[in-house]
């Protein structure tokens, strides 16, 4: 009798705690590897810059950047605060408008045929081009509104697109259940289409959150006047002044903010989808 162990399936009797062990290993991994990788990345950067003698106005070493971050901390944090405010407002606005318009497009064929081209046209309109006009339209005294509109413009399309695809992907079997029980349009939307579209919408939101950061920065760049002091100004000014370390410090802050926002969206996603959607399920084998 030849008993050869089936590699994938053999589980020694002592592995009752296997799940626990793997779990905590994963946890350790999650907690330590990314920071270590980050550290390696920064060190490599530092070494590279020093070894090649690259001047700070071409590529500053991380040490120089962090020093600049430290020296300019106050101003940078204030600037970040301003940018964050615009970003978050634009993101919220983009999310709401994207979902609402997406619903209309997905549900009403007429709206779809008529609105889509304009939505696409809006998406490809460079805000750099229309910034001066937007400022005239909203009035110079309401620059914040112009900023909001411009950064919204950058962020809203992924939400729209994701909502539409999500709603259109609803399982036909479930649609039949709702039709059978005479769900009103509203009920169908709230209880079927939106939950089913959620994985798509949240994926769109992750893209959108990043775009609203860029949107806010670019909007501030093209429409901001001297009184608004967000990160865009810091970056542009540092750049013209050749204070490249400060520019990188601002970029680091911006990237950090973007990553935090993205993490928040990922968290939201695993909270909302964790108990049911494949994309967020832990492997259970």
């Amino acid at each position: 009798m030849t008993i050869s162990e089936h590699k994938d399936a053999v589980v020694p009797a002592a592995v009752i705690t296997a799940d626990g062990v793997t779990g905590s290993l994963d946890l350790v991994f999650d907690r330590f590897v990314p920071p270590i990788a980050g550290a390696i990345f920064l060190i490599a950067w530092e070494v590279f810059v020093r070894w090649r003698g690259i001047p700070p106005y071409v590529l500053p070493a991380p040490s120089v950047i962090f020093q600049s971050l430290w020296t300019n901390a106050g101003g940078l944090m204030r600037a970040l605060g301003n940018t964050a405010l615009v970003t978050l407002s634009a993101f919220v606005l983009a999310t709401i408008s994207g979902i609402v318009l997406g619903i209309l497009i997905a549900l009403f064929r007429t709206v779809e045929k008529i609105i889509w081209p304009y939505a696409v046209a809006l998406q490809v309109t460079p805000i750099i081009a229309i910034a001066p006009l937007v400022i005239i339209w909203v009035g110079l005294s309401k620059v914040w509104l112009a900023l909001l509109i411009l950064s919204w413009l950058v962020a809203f399309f992924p939400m729209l697109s994701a909502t539409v695809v999500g709603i259109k992907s609803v399982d036909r079997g479930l649609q039949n259940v709702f039709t059978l029980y005479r769900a009103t349009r509203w009920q169908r939307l709230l209880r079927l289409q939106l939950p089913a579209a959620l994985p798509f919408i949240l994926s769109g939101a992750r893209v959108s959150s990043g775009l609203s950061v860029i949107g806010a920065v670019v909007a501030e760049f093209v429409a901001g006047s001297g009184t608004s002091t967000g990160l865009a100004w810091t970056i542009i000014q540092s750049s013209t002044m050749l204070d490249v370390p400060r520019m990188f410090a601002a970029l680091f802050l911006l990237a950090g903010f973007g990553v935090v926002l993205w993490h928040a969206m990922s968290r939201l996603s695993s909270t909302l989808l964790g108990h049911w959607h494949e994309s967020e399920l832990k492997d259970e084998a």
Partner: protein
Amino acid sequence: LDKIRFGLGWLPEAEHCGFFQAKATGLYEAAGLDVDLMAGGPGINTAMLVAGGEQDLGMGSSFTTLNMVKQGIPGVTVAAFFQKDPQTLVAHAGQGVSKLEDVKGRPVMVADFARGEFWQFLKYRFDFTDDQLRPYTYSSAVFVSDKTAIQQGYVTADAHYLGNQLDQPPVIMLLADHGYLNYATTVFGMNSYIEAHPDAVRAFLSATAEGWKSCMTGDYTPAMKLATSINTDPAYGEGLWKASINEMRDRHIVSNESGEGVGAMTDTRWADFFADMVKAGVYPADLEFRKAYTLSYLPGLK
């Protein structure tokens, strides 16, 4: 008090000294004006804001109102506070470039906006060609990192920024010294506004001229204090102000060597500049360029 909303071309900086001085030392108030100095920025198109009625008067250059005339927008320039346009080309020392003629055939980093303005002048006057064009990114990093590079600059700031980064001071070629007749830091407005408020406009220009005189010959710190309280960026601080004011004084930017009054413009200079631009192909010869300015509000006149 008459309210005037004045659009600056950029963030508050030393090139706006006269306006801030007038405001800070109460010259405007004394003239019966309540002037709001509105900061600009890269996306702020002052000409559009003035044309759209969001601002009463704005800061521009000769091009501003010539473009308006070309587009059928009734705007006029009423005064010019920079007799010399501070626009420069900057090269590294020791590269065999000392004057604009030497730049011919070499790559030059020029911003997109300039390609409708001084680039055409350079092409016509010094036989530059479009294949010399390289992109200008509003950052000197590219320039500093490449010894052969030549880029556009601003005389009030070049030496200050670049001086710290370069071993040798850069070669600065002021276009105005090479026959570039553009008026800079002009004041323009819409016909309708100016005709409706002639006294306010005159008062504004006179007070501003006083401000400029005091900047160029006296103590500019009131202006600097006011400006830096609005534009708090440390990069726009005292160091830059000092350097810029010195450049403006040394190079006679505000009132040139021929001793014309502060804010002055002449018919001849407008005509010559326009003729140059026609030859450069920027404007058609039949453009009614005289609609682009008026001499009847100049600060010297009473």
